[in-house]
């Protein structure tokens, strides 16, 4: 019976971590030379530095198992969860940069203010189920819940929001809800029992049209949710069907809808 793999080629050694230190957007990189062992993840190294060299190094984390989505950061420029990025995937011949997410206001060191996301979610119409059956229970087939369950795997790490150029570069936080909340809306819209209508909001203030399908969000999702293809494009189609379908457009002219 075989045991575990050795953990790749990079079984340990020393590395220089170049970590962003500072407050409210002001600061600079600081270098920390540290040893690491095989199987460590980036968050382990950050904790090691914290315990031995920089006691006040601010980092947000929680489960350290890729399930809570707290430790999002940019490692060598790539948005990732620190707890799921193994050292053996990293080239340690060069300094390893670790920076906070760029799409949100900076708080301190690796911590950003992600409260905007919580405000956005409140604005999305809540789940409104149809009436249950006579026995008080709902019936749904597994085939019908599969696609929604994919969206509900989301751990709200906000890496998709971080990488999205509409938020990151164009700062349209006031008119675009970002990939996370398009996935959230899609989960509600495609829920077999939901009766609420979110299409007008998606079209107007939530700005689904801003997404131009570059799929950066899908690439960084640690839960491998097919954000663009399975969530955003179907929502765009619903908006198009409602607002840009010529027959419906004509209908609206007459009804004033």
């Amino acid at each position, binding site marked *: 019976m*075989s045991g575990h793999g050795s*953990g790749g080629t990079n079984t340990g050694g020393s590395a220089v971590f170049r970590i962003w230190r500072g407050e409210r957007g002001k600061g600079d990189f600081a270098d920390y030379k540290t040893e690491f*062992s095989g199987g460590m*993840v980036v968050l382990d190294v950050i904790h090691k530095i914290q315990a031995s060299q920089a006691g006040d190094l601010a980092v947000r984390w929680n489960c350290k198992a*890729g399930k809570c989505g*707290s430790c999002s950061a940019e490692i060598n420029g790539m948005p990732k969860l620190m707890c799921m990025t193994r050292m053996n995937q990293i080239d340690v011949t060069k300094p390893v940069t670790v920076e906070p997410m760029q799409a949100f206001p900076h708080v301190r*060191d690796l911590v950003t203010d992600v409260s905007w996301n919580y405000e956005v979610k409140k604005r999305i119409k809540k789940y409104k189920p149809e009436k249950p059956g006579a026995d008080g229970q709902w019936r749904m*087939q597994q085939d019908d819940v599969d696609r929604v369950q994919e969206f509900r795997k989301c751990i709200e790490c906000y890496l998709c929001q971080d990488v999205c150029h509409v938020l990151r570069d164009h700062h349209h936080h006031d008119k675009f809800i970002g990939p996370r909340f398009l996935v959230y809306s899609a989960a509600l819209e495609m829920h077999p029992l939901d009766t609420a209508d979110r299409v007008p909001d998606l079209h107007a203030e939530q700005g689904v049209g801003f997404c131009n399908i570059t799929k950066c969000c899908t690439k960084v999702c640690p839960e491998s949710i097919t954000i663009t293809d399975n969530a955003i494009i179907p929502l765009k189609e619903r908006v198009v069907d409602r607002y840009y379908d010529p027959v419906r457009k004509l209908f609206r002219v007459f009804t004033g809808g």
Partner: protein
Amino acid sequence: MAEYQVLEHDVLVIGAGGAGLRAAIEASANGVKVGLVTKSLLGKAHTVMAEGGVAAAMANVDDRDNWRVHFADTMRGGQYLNHPRMAELHAKEAPERVRELEAWGALFDRTKDGRILQRNFGGHRYARLAHVGDRTGLEMIRTLQDHGIHLGIDVHMEHTVVDLLKDGDRIAGAFAYDRERGRFKVFHAKAVVLATGGIGRAFQITSNSWEYTGDGHSLAYHAGASLKDMEFVQFHPTGMVWPPSVRGLLVTEGVRGEGGVLRNKEGRRFMFDDIPDNYKLQTADNEEEAWRYTIGDKNARRPPELLTRDHVARCIAREVREGRGSPHGGVFLDIAWIKEKLPNAAEHIKRKLPSMYHQFKQLADLDITQEPMEIGPTTHYMMGGVNVHPDSQMSDVPGLFAAGECAAGLHGANRLGGNSLSDLIVFGKRAGEFAAKFAKEHSTPALPKDRVDAVARIALEPFERQGTESAYDIQHELQERMQALVGIVRRQEEMEEAVAMIRRLESRAAKAVVHGNREYNPGWHTALDLRHLLTVSEAITIAGLDRKESRGAHFRDDFPNKDPEASKFNIVIVKGPDGAMQLKRVPVVPLTEEHKKIIEENQA
């Protein structure tokens, strides 16, 4: 005089995992003003890590199930030290609480006829766990979070409570700081619900997140509430053992529920070798019958891998100790073998256990559909906690409630898998309801201003000290020593050594120095957590010393058997007038005639 902001609520809930969210929702639905304080961001609490499912006798998969069987299973698992009234309420109300989650948008896996699917789990007689693959906790917390944000609850994220405040005997609120800026906040409230989870961070190898520093246990104890059953710490049999940085990370019991088997390095399924007498009648004695159970044959008995967690954990520890372990000090957990039985086994495993597939692939370079995992016991759950009234969840301190892992009673000497998520929603709801009722029936308490100033002063002391004592070092030493001295196998001398160790670390903690400022300073947070960690460590150890027998999760090498006399009491700990821990044995809550009858009819 310290600077602080005062915030007014009727009910303050501390902790935003499943129990805290459910309590806040219920209190809010009862028409009172609710504040919710959480150390992390909303939706990140340890509940997200719960994998296997939520136990509720809905009888969707096996129509023989009902609350009576669930009650009997829970009591047997807890070795009859449970509070029977809590076990009864839990078994009766869990199905309704689960259906309520569905009404709020949760999407559980489905049966063929479209109802909520239920799976087998250790200690549960019938398939009972409603689940979503192996991410049930995430589904639960997201459902509660998304429902709760529309109810007008004031959520205070990344706030840590330092101490509870009292007006005379009754609760008056809590003193806290926001982690981002380090500003002090006084939460003035008529009722407080503790829903802070467990204590796993008192040990070195744990499946628990950083938040599990025993805050609720310690806050309640220092406020004058009693703690119960603190000797019972559950070591989950299957945590990852390799690579070292993820040692302790949970491998769901669902792996065994789906057919995973435990083998030693000789390839032997050692769980067949040691089946306790009280489980013999319902446990398979051969591999063929065990597999039939896995695929749903109602006439087959359970595989021995699904015996209670304490027993499986000790069997694994024995294999390792006697030299039959795996290369990295665990044993093998093999789900890949089911390819001998199922045509598309790899797809089936990925579908039923997606997080586990992902976790091993990413963190250990291992494909669980092809190779066995290496696993070993990990500190997982605290059965002990705040001693509460079974119906209302109120502690000995008027207005102070507790629910979920930080409360005691439901699980007795050991918890069954799946009974934690159901605990959170059943008793979270009750705590919220009764806290709201208490708030409505009582006037606003006075704020103890002197106490507020004193707590503020103590909280800032680490910044003012000189020296080199590091809070991180103290925490690491405590974790390492608790693991070694008060872990899965305990003995008198080692626990006595642990008490002395805790005393030494207490005096070192009083000298811990923090650098930097108050803004998002993890060194400071660690220094303030030490008090809680040391308090719960002491309670666990002295209760462990006092229980001179082995029962449930508490195993003593020097007293390896159950003592019938010790089945008659629970151990309760209170803070004495001199500030020292006082321990007393109190008689277990007697079973009613009805309870006895249920247990009798479910013996076989």
